[in-house]
């Protein structure tokens, strides 16, 4: 994994010798986990946002509660790029454990604001960066009596130092503090004091020697700053979810916790305390998905959220949902696997497993939100799709999208009612004339009708089972009935394919096509601009769902060379596309894979594409050969 502030990226900075650098740099704060740096980081982020500067914050945190190093990166970009940059320009060094490595990772011309007691020895003795020693600990000790508060406020002092050095406006800090301490006015004032401490130390004791600064601009107007998990939680609420069952796991937990908070606020009758939503912390993911399926079988809109380890546990039940045709919405906020992997790092590692989760022939619709607004939209859509097609629907987000704040255009209020799918009421059954056949394809779209338990009609009941069944849901081991069911399910999947969100394609007739999905979108967008600056044009197709939409095939057909960019080792979407597209198109695909555990930067996309443009890979048949047509990028440092 690359060092979080881009160790080894020396020489990439634009700052050195170029005079002022305004609103276009990255700042990294290196702190200790559990020291309360989170609110300082948020105040800094929100203040920059309030100045209209496009910001993109990212946390790099350990799987630990207290004591291990943690880094916070905030990228400022006048063009609005939100991808992680592979290097940083300004380091705030507050962690003695990582001090040497943090200092060594700085590019030439960088700025290092550091705790004054950290020694300027070893890697920190370098002369090609600007060093600002600040006695954070001493300042805090002099002014703050309570030792816990002192540790916490030390972080807020750094915000003051940075604000003074960069020129962050007081008003912007004020509104950031308002947002952060909405319900705690006393905390607001002590935090403001700490910021002031930092500011006055800079004014009194330091001389600005670097060119980095900020200026108010108009780059965030009408935008939200929100993490994907919160956006998805709102989507669940607006999508009519009434039963949520979960088992805590990073990076999925915050989705459920946000949803609980939203339900407390918007689904609770203030007078009676009645809550129009059940939120159950289950005993494990098997139970969580079982409750979801049970609730959806009985007609509620139900969901669960987890990450890779939970997905593995849910496998058996998901196959049941597929075969017995029971709806469910399952969020997978992906993290680095296999196994426990790197639990607090990001990856697009569950694409193949979610798509075909469970034994036997199984296929599931998978939504692939690429932005926080799509986290909201797809969450809502997932409930419609699950009801309409009576099958488990996955929403694959990831740690980067789910847990980091992203700028976004505002979200749309849903138009139209919920799509509850084909449900027969007692009246419908009365009018039917013939006995209700649960699994019969009466409409020719391979999607059958269902009834809900509790329907007051003698013909409503049917038997839901994961064993072989005929059209009337009767137990059978007949191979004809089994084949009939499996073939209908395959046809149903084609109906689903047509209903899934189309890819977003940006095309200007370039030779090179780029395919990406999910959180890689930010890096790909930026990489295309950078490639264009070098005279290399590329078209872009962002896949938003599985099964693959027909438009993806069209895109590949229009491009002789198509790079599939993703954040995993094995090129999971690449493999799916190769097996699902026409064979002649499959050979046009090339794979770019990044799996360092941190969000893919634009550089890695460019590197991956250019390496194969320069040394074209052999036309590859089969997976082993396809592995040759691949660049894995990253691994710097």
């Amino acid at each position, binding site marked *: 994994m690359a060092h979080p502030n881009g160790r080894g990226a020396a020489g990439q900075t634009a700052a050195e010798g170029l005079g002022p650098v305004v609103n276009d740099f990255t700042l990294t704060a290196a702190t200790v986990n559990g020291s309360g740096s989170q609110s300082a980081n948020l105040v800094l982020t929100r203040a920059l946002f309030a100045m209209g500067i496009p910001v993109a914050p990212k946390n790099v945190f350990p799987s630990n509660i207290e004591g291990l190093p943690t880094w916070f990166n905030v990228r400022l970009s006048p063009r609005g790029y939100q991808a992680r940059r592979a290097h940083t320009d300004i380091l705030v060094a507050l962690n003695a454990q990582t001090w040497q490595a943090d200092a060594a990772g700085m590019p030439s011309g960088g700025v290092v604001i550091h705790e004054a007691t950290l020694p300027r020895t070893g890697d920190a003795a370098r002369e090609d960066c600007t060093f600002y020693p600040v006695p954070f600990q001493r300042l805090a000790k002099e002014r703050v009596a309570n030792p816990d508060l002192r540790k916490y406020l030390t972080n807020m002092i750094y915000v003051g130092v940075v604000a003074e050095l960069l020129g962050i406006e007081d008003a912007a800090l004020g509104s950031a503090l308002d947002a952060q301490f909405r319900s705690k006015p006393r905390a607001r004032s002590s935090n403001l004091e700490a910021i002031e401490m930092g500011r006055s130390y800079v004014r009194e004791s330091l001389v600005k020697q670097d060119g980095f600064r900020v200026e108010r601009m108009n780059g965030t107007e009408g935008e939200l700053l929100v993490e994907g998990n919160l956006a998805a939680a709102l989507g669940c609420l607006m999508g009519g979810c009434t039963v949520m069952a979960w088992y805590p796991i990073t990076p999925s937990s915050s989705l459920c916790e946000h949803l609980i908070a939203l339900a407390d606020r918007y689904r609770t009758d203030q007078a009676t305390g009645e809550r129009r939503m059940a939120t159950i912390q289950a005993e494990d993911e098997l139970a969580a998905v079982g409750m979801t399926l049970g609730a959806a079988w009985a007609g509620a809109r139900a969901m669960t959220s987890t990450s890779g380890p939970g997905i593995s546990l849910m496998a058996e039940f998901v196959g049941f949902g597929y075969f017995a045709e029971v709806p469910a919405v399952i969020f997978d906020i992906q993290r680095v696997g296999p196994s426990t992997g790197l639990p607090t790092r990001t990856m697009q590692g569950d694409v193949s497993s979610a798509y075909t989760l469970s034994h036997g022939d199984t296929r599931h619709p998978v939504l692939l939100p690429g932005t926080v607004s799509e986290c909201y939209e797809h969450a809502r859509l997932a409930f419609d799709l699950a009801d309409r097609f009576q099958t488990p629907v996955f929403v694959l987000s990831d740690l980067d999208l789910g847990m980091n704040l992203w700028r976004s255009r505002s979200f749309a209020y849903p138009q139209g009612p919920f799509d509850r799918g084909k449900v027969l009421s007692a009246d419908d059954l009365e009018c039917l004339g013939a006995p209700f056949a649960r699994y019969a394809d009466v409409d020719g779209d391979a999607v059958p009708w269902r009834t809900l338990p509790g329907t007051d009609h003698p013909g409503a009941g049917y*038997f*839901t089972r994961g064993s072989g069944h005929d059209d009337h849901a009767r137990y059978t081991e007949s191979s004809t009935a089994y084949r009939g069911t499996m073939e209908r399910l395959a046809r149903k999947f084609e109906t689903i394919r047509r209903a899934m969100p189309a890819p977003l394609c940006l095309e200007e007739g370039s030779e090179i096509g780029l395919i990406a999905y999910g959180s890689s979108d930010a890096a790909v967008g930026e990489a295309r601009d950078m490639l264009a600056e070098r005279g290399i044009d590329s078209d872009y197709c962002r896949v938003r769902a599985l099964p693959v939409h027909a438009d993806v095939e069209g895109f590949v057909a229009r491009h002789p060379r198509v790079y599939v960019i993703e954040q995993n080792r094995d090129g999971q979407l690449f493999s799916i596309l190769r097996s699902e597209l026409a064979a002649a198109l499959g050979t046009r695909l090339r794979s770019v894979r990044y799996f360092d555990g941190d969000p893919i930067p634009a550089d890695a996309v460019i590197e991956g594409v250019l390496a194969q443009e320069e040394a074209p890979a052999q036309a590859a048949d089969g997976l082993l050969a396809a592995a040759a047509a691949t660049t894995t990028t990253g691994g710097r440092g």
Partner: protein
Amino acid sequence: MTATATPPPAAGPRNRIGIGRETYKGLPTTLCAGCGHNSITNHLIKALYESAIPPHRLAKTSGIGCSSKAIAYFVESAHGLNAVHGRMPSITTGAKLADRELVMVGISGDGDTASIGLGQYCHLIRRNVDCTYIVEDNGVYGLTKGQFSATADIGSVQKKGQVNEFETIDICGLAVELGASFVARSFSGDGKQLVPLLRAAFAHRGTAVLDVISPCVTFNDHEGSTKSYEYVKAHDTVLQELDFIPADREIVVDYPEGTTTTVRLHDGSEMVLRKLGPEHDPSDRLAALRVVLEGRSRGELVTGLLYVDPEMADLTERERLPQVPLRDLGEAELRLSPDAFAQLLAEWA
């Protein structure tokens, strides 16, 4: 033997909601003739009929096993869900949350509950999900052909000669310990006791656990089992001369409260049931635990209502769910208003 095997009377009596007993029947059983599970099905049909449970309100759930198949053999017109092995509790929990008006009846086996599904069993009890939870307990895995289950007696010998070295998990003792609001044990052949217990379980709001001892005719009849005919004959002099029990004969018992009865199983093994008498106070959790443990130390299975707390809040109450089922709520009740939505987004800007 089973009720489904007897031809229905042309126009039988009706229960208080005007529904005939026929309606409470299910598909013909596919279980072995004489299987205790079939007897339980019969008693369930009677109890559901007598309690006048509206068939459309009933939702039957189960896991996997011979026992779990039984939900197909009563109230054919009701919805049923045969889940995956050991996961009936989570399905039941979800369904009850979606529609609190459903009468949930879950059927499981001793393998389904005490092994693969032990976690879900415990947590369903903890949440006091309103349902009737029947464990059709035969001490073996019937469907996979006779392996030990976790409720098998220590020292018993399996068909292939293997000895069970492990302590038994007591479904009822565990439920009492976990704070269940209704715990009872009965025997598949004791309709006089089981039917009222089932009816009490339907009426109970909360989890009603019923551990029903239910002999497996097929996988206990072999030499070397502590429950085998030969073993009992050689070792237990108190026993009267044993009759051969044809494999298709249901085992029926009828004994008064406060007494014990010795039940001879199809394989000739015996089991002592002790029926709780009026001296047992079912509101006393400690007493319930004591009778279970004391019974076990005497080699007896205590039957009857062990514990009940009719006041304990069930999951829908603890979740403060509205009276109207969640699944019936629509856009107006579930979505934020456009104003509230705009205001919330403004906080994120």
